[in-house]
């Protein structure tokens, strides 16, 4: 399924409704799409363009600006290895080297059995726990080569199925804006007064 599922189209429309201009929803929609398939498919980009009223070329332009959006199929598990400063100082380079050996692919590659994609990533905002990695966007902290090996072995053995979800069901929490808290999709230039829930109180 390379277009958004019907359920995701419902979510997409909910997201679009939060913005005064539909195309502002593009980034969250790209996330939604990547979450569904592990990467962003061509068909999804066409569909997102239709949903927010821009051309496929514009969707493509926006999507490719962001390095964490992926356009090629990924393995069942996508392993993002942080390589930014704190992690680099704490041995991220060696860890990547080790990971490449363990999986038999270079960074950016996917194992032949389609289980793992190994990828470079920028700071994952957990610098105190360096070096870090994310597997299907779930953290592993202070990762040693031995930790990495057992992580891979456990994943292969299916032992972490509960903890680490599959593409398509990655997001456990969805942003919901209660009706009485939403300010509605009003373009900034059209805003004349504070949101209803502020109730005349100063903003801060």
């Amino acid at each position: 399924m390379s277009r958004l599922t019907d359920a995701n189209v419902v979510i997409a429309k909910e997201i679009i409704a939060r913005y005064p201009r539909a195309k502002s929803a593009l980034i969250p929609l790209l996330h939604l799409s990547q979450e569904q398939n592990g990467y962003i498919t061509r068909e999804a980009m066409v569909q997102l363009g239709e949903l927010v009223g821009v051309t496929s070329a514009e969707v493509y332009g926006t999507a490719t600006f962001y390095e964490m959006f992926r356009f090629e199929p990924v393995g069942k598990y996508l392993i993002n290895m942080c390589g930014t400063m704190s992690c680099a100082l704490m041995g991220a380079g060696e860890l990547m080297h080790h990971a490449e050996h363990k999986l038999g692919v270079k960074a950016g590659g996917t194992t032949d059995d389609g289980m793992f994609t190994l990828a470079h990533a920028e700071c994952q905002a957990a610098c105190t726990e360096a070096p870090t990695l994310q597997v299907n966007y779930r953290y592993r902290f202070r990762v040693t080569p031995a930790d990495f090996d057992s992580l891979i072995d456990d994943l292969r053995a299916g032992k972490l199925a509960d903890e680490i979800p599959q593409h398509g069901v990655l997001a456990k929490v969805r942003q919901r804006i209660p009706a009485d808290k939403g300010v509605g999709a009003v373009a900034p230039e059209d805003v004349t007064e504070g949101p209803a829930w502020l109730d005349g109180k100063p903003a801060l």
Partner: protein
Amino acid sequence: MTTVDPTNTTHVDPNAVSLTINGKSVSARKGDLIIAAADKANEFIPRFCYHPRMAPAGMCRQCLVEVEGPRGPMMVVSCMTPVAEGQVVRTETEQVKKAQEGVLELLLANHPLDCPVCDKGGECPLQDQAFSHGPGESRYVEEKRHYEKPIAISDNVFLDRERCILCDRCTRFADEVAGDALISFTSRGNNTQVMTFPDEPFSSYFSGNTVQICPVGALTAKPYRFKARPWDLDQVESTCTTCSVGCRTVVQSSRDELVRYQGVDIDPVNWGWLCDKGRFNFEAINSEDRLSTPYLKDAHGNHVATTWSSALETAARMIRTSLATSPESVAIIGGARGTNEDAFAWAQLADAIGVDQRDAQLADGLPAEVFSLAQATIDEAMAAQTIILLAPDLKEELPVLHLRIRDVAQKRKAKVVEITSRPTGLTPSAWKSVMVEPGKAASTIRAGLDQSILKQIGSGTVSVVVGRMNLAESAESVVLALAEILHVAPQAKVLPVLRRGNVRGAITAGLTPQRGAADTAEILALAAAGKIDTLVLLGSDPLSDVPDADLARRGLAGARNIISIDTFMTPSTSQADVVLPAAAYGEKNGTTTNLEGRISNIAQKITPAGTARPDWMIAVELASALGKDLGLGSVEDVTAKLAKTVAQFAPAADTKALRHDGVVMNRLTPITLNRAEAPANDRNSYDYRIVSFRKLYDSGISTAKSPSLVTLAIGATVVVHPLDLDRIGVQAGAHVQVIGEKATVVLPVSTSEDVLRGTAWLPFNQPGNDAREMFDVNATVVDVRIEKLS
């Protein structure tokens, strides 16, 4: 600084701003950008991304200047900074120079410097400004960034990403001006590049403009690639006559061959833009297939090359013999493809020999009375608060007018109300689209439009853009609808949009039925009945253009003699007894009239093909073979006599004024249209009602004979609503029979949600089986059945 005289209170313009640039005091208007004010003051600031017809983007930083601020001089980007009262701008200080050199050094860091093999070399802003404002030397010694070069991003446009300086001009144009955002910046940082969506080409009707405005050689156009170097080019300013928008162009040649047209920016019309058809169809003029010598048909029906004198003598003899019977046995069809002078000389000839049956339109236009309604120029029409479109898809038929309307609609300067039988290129920008079944526009408006629309058009300024919205629907039907609109918006001014290049000029110069004589449809019917002895086709091809193939065929078969003056051996020309080769656009001087009645010059750049001559000259020579002296010895004579004879053309006497913006012809005292009850036009529910208008690329000569355009025609097809396809019971792509009263035509069927249910859209004059076989000039609408092939 300017000083204000407090005693002088007249004409204090609240929007006037005065500032100084390089010590010069300059007056500007509030909101003007510094760079624009500097341009006006002849103080050149280098730039790459700034383009006066697009929103500033501040992408290249080449236009940095120094502005005096509270804390001393500061650097600002002059294409993003508006002028302010008392502002002090300096564009040539050491600081500014340093900044300009720095920016250029960076822009050149990754630039391949392959000027010797680059089309742009010699007219390249990067080359020129590197020379005038650059550091002279680069410190960059590392390996440059490499890309595959060049890649085709559409059939006619090539992109060399190594040369691109990421100025955002092409991408901004595609989005902001053309509304075809099919190219975009992709990736980021060092990898940023202009790109299409994978495998989805930049197929925009306006793509050639990006090549023209690209400030480097990153975008090149196939029809011109490696054809010439700028310093080999000869050029002359002219007006495009491919359609009746009349975009201002410069016609460029090298070694007596046309190699390129570029848009010229004139305020009242095209703002520098051209459509791709108008830009690239010079190829047709260079075609090997051009008629270059006269032909006579021999006893076996073969065309044999002959001399001008024998061809003219034969033509004169035919006309003389016919006239001896009656002037009514001679008719002239065509003239809308030539200059005003061509049309006028032919009208003078017709006057001299008493021929009243003449018509520059091919039964595909509107009655000439639309020019007698209160007229709007393009600018006036765009300035209206409401623009009503009762017209074909302008993106397809009059592309640059589409851009002008899109501009005001996007900027919310005008509300566009369209009345159409099929969504058009302007539907996304329209405020309201009223979908009407063919034949029902008048009755729909009469029955009452939406209250909000009535309120909007009932007051304020209104313009009505009126054209032949559907070629399978009668002109009468459009006029009735127009009368209804003018009834609810009596203040409205009309911009008639007849499509053929100089149709307005030709009609005004006299190539229109005189004294109630027959028009093209009637002439063809008379010919079919054996009542036309000599039929003159003046650059017209009824067999391809009249929206009734059967009538055209019978008419041409029934005319005893046909004299054709044309640039190509068209289907109609090949039936002619006498063929006279005509000089084409770019091969003759004269003037043309665009759809709003603007007269401007067109200029000769190359020698005509073979012995081809301009139409006006042929008229003069034919007249003299007939013993008439038209008193016209040169094209200037014709212009002068035209300006003297035809009141509307009087402004053309000022030949200087015709050179750039041109002049708008004199208007007549407006008439009013009478309303009338439209026929009910009811139909059987099994029928489909035909909607047909042209696509930009069709079987017309200028597309068919231009190798770069010919492949872009979509081909004959019938398009229905997806639900109707189920009703027919076939898959999209299958062939179906379209069964009309007059003929059955087999066509591939496809679907589009855009097509109203119960209607069928057939593009007009496309390669393939001809839909016009089913059309009937005498019918208000054409209903057909669509069935599976048996």
